[in-house]
């Protein structure tokens, strides 16, 4: 038996196929302004007749008619992170338009969570804005900021931070120094947000930014707790959805 999880986030739509022990396939498409179409595209690409259960999650979770179940991204991220990491007790997810911190019980179930979804500060949007103004591809961030001294970015608001960056550029500041300043700003804010839940133990970092070492390391420094991630961390929600679907579809007894 295999199951399919599809996580429709604001920026990317992810799919994962799961067979009860391993992730068989993953697929990522940009969501853009077409969440329903992109979920359908991921479904069409990954679905096979062996799929016993399809679970949709993420903000577009209600848009896939073929889904057997919808589960919130909180529960799915917690499950996915618990599968990808060892002894995970807290998940930090920086998404395209929100940011979540989830505390886990020792058995991996959700104990508490907090979401920032009122404001772009501390989300992927903030980073998209930065790479646009500073004119470098996000994929190069780790190499770009290496060995640089961060500028202080004090604006909490994405719109004001943009003006601040423009002012720094006008004052002749180094682009990479500014970029590192922005990385620090978002990571510190995210850490402070997660600290409200009083996390302990290992923290698992998910979302599109988790693949960049500069973000992982900065959050770890700000939190004072070990922060781990995984090459599939961006798929944590989809993998968790597939695994929850698997548990549901398993014949009992």
């Amino acid at each position, binding site marked *: 038996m295999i199951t399919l999880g599809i996580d429709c986030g604001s920026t990317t739509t992810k799919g994962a196929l799961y067979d009860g022990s391993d992730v068989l396939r993953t697929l990522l498409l940009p969501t853009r302004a077409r969440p329903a179409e992109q979920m359908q595209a991921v479904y069409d690409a990954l679905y096979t007749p062996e799929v016993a259960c399809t679970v949709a999650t993420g903000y577009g979770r209600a848009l896939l008619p073929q889904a057997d179940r919808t589960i919130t991204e909180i*529960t799915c991220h917690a499950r996915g992170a618990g599968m990808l990491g060892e002894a995970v007790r807290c998940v930090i997810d920086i998404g395209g338009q929100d940011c979540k911190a989830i505390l886990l019980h020792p058995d991996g179930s959700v104990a*508490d*969570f907090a*979401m920032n979804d*009122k404001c772009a500060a501390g989300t992927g949007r903030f980073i998209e804005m930065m790479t646009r103004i500073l004119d470098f591809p996000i994929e190069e961030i780790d190499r770009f900021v290496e060995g640089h001294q961060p500028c202080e970015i004090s604006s909490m608001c994405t719109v004001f931070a943009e003006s601040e960056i423009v002012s720094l550029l006008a004052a002749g500041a180094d682009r990479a120094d500014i970029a590192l300043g922005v990385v620090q700003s978002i990571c510190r804010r995210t850490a402070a947000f997660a600290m409200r839940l009083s996390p302990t133990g290992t923290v698992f970092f998910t979302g599109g930014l988790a693949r960049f070492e500069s973000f992982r390391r900065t959050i770890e420094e700000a939190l004072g707790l070990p922060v781990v991630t995984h090459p599939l961390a961006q798929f944590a929600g989809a993998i968790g959805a597939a695994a929850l679907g698997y548990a549901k579809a398993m014949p009992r007894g």
Partner: protein
Amino acid sequence: MELVKELPEIFSEFGEQRRKSFMDAYALKQQGIPFVGAFCTYLPQEIPLAMGAAVVGLCSKTGETIPEAEMVLPRNLCPLIKASYGFAKTDKCPYFYFSDLIIGETTCDGKKKMYELLGQIKPVHVMELPNSQSPAALLLWKSEILRLKEKLESHFGVTITEDAIREAIKLKNRERQAIKAFYALQKQVPAPMDGMSLHQVLEGVQFKFDREKAIDELWALIDKIQRESDREKYRGRKRILVTGSPIGGVAAKTIQAIEEAGGQVVAMENCGGAKSVDELVDEENPDVYDALARRYLNIGCSCMTPNPNRFKMLDELFEEYRVDAVVEIVLQACHTFAVEAYSVKKFATERGIPYLGVETDYSTSDEGQLRTRMAAFMEML
């Protein structure tokens, strides 16, 4: 199955009451009945009732007039305060319109400063509500109740006797007992009604001008629910207690989100719920002002510091209603509830009761986020 059709009918009669109230208010006005506008559960309604006035609730529940209010008030203010001021300013609310005197209390900072501005467009009397429940505070509150009586007497040219107040105390106590018996139905496992119905009745009863009739209707409703409710359909629902700011303006998007996600609101601690109804006024106390002062000052609102009575009541409700989880709803910029939320979360979780806090306002922009939060919380339980 027939029941499913039946219950909402009688519930919706309460809900419609609020719309119909405009014409009712007009009719009462033709009979020469004065209207006293009230904001807060701290107002001892017995005093205006003793002079035969109709007491109408003014806490506004829609954001319709907020843009109008923001021409005067700051944007970053509680939506209830902005909306209330907006309705007063625009005459769009029949209760504001018909109020001959509006009574406010120095509860939160936002309200007491808004009353200063409201006083420039409507007749307003502000009662100085103490911020604590000390013996000195009790004396002040008692003197404020006396001052309210004198204000009503001079404003309306009437005499308010202690006998009339005593009668009003008895009437209000009977009303409280009926409301308590109504919401106590939810102690049953499974509870007999959904949270929207619970909320609509608790809110609707505040807009009934004929109190005797309202009491009779409540008892009839209780009977009907006891006889006819199909409680089994709620079996297995997570039993949710709602607390926090007044939720009249956000009930639809919060309570519905809880219940769509598989919860059932079994207890409401906030304004209009247990907090403002639970305790009776002592009918045996020969000093009616003292009796009223003691009872009303005891209300466990976050504008009190410290605020032990809220936690005492939460503890009782957790037990009596077999609460599975707490959802606290805080209105944007409602500082006292926002700060106290930390203590409520700690209090609940120490008792093994999971807690979710959400901040919202009167807009619809966060409906999706609220649904996700409530659903994730229910999945967590």
